[in-house]
């Protein structure tokens, strides 16, 4: 259920881009980066995307998700560490709180792959 809304937001964002394209191309893949420190579960997102894009401009498009791990930087120890989600977020060496998240918060549309009819003309 949570992913349903996230997918709605994703489709809206892709649609904003698509509508600025003069030739309204056929989108074949949408590449996402999803951090582990977000509320998004990739498997559910895949499923929701497939269901919600049926009969839309994104019908048949594939969602390709790259997950990024949660990595924080400890200023005390001057080093990166990997918090254990659900268990422990503070620095394992000095117990400083997790303040500086370097990776894991991403929810990003990286690239869109598409085909256009015009391409065949310019060939």
């Amino acid at each position, binding site marked *: 259920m*949570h992913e349903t809304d996230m997918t709605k937001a994703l489709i809206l*964002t892709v649609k904003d881009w698509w509508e600025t394209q003069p030739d309204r191309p056929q989108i074949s893949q949408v590449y996402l980066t999803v951090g582990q420190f977000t*509320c998004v579960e990739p498997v559910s997102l895949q499923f929701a995307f497939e269901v919600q894009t049926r009969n839309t401009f994104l019908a048949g498009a594939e969602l390709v998700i790259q997950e990024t791990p949660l990595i924080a930087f400890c200023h005390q120890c001057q080093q990166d560490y990997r918090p254990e989600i*659900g268990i422990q977020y503070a620095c394992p060496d000095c117990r400083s709180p997790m303040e500086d998240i370097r990776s894991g918060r991403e929810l990003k549309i990286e*690239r869109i*792959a598409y085909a*256009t009819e015009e391409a065949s003309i310019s060939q």
Partner: protein
Amino acid sequence: MHQTFDAALGINLLHANQAGADHNRAHFDQWGITCLNLMSSPGAGKTALLEKTLAALNQEIKIAVIEGDMTTELDADRLRQYNVPVIAINTGRSCHLDSKMVAGGMHRLAHDYDPTEFDLVLVENVGNLVCPAEFEVGEHAKVALLSVTEGEDKPLKYPVMFQEADCLLITKTDLAPYVDVDLEQIVANVRQMNPDCVIIPVSAKTGEGLATWFAWLRSYLEQTKAVDRPLSTVH
């Protein structure tokens, strides 16, 4: 023959929502309004806290409420008896408010009243510990609520909301003796990911801690008023 192209976007997945949130915040700023987003799991006590807050501060601060309730107007009706504007947003099956829904409520407020008269808009989000944290609605600060009956481990299991909160209210402290909960452990767990958050234990039932919450509200209002806000320059 088709040729495949690649467009590099690099845009946030929530771009559309974020733009809407910025739009709402700009309106609030223009009207001299501070907006707070109240978030918690279902039943942690958001509406009960709002009732106490309206009852105590209604004369002193001009408040309006934007109420996100999944299907009913129950919460909105509880709050209307305090004589403040309560704009109910029916969120349908959505498990959080988004900036577009709040824009609807905000514009309704501006249509029915003079928005420059208000100091504070309190948004009660849909009860859910997960999604509301990702969907900004145009708030200046996020207030999370966690009731003592939910257990110490919730900040560890649902970290994003607790990491984003500017103020955390640990609610229903009157029930703490009955549920075997360690308040200090809750605080320690939140501190692991959010060292700066203001944490206030409260009980809407006994009134414990409410004075501290009101004091935080007042000082936050002062603080946002003081910062670069073009008060009543645009109508």
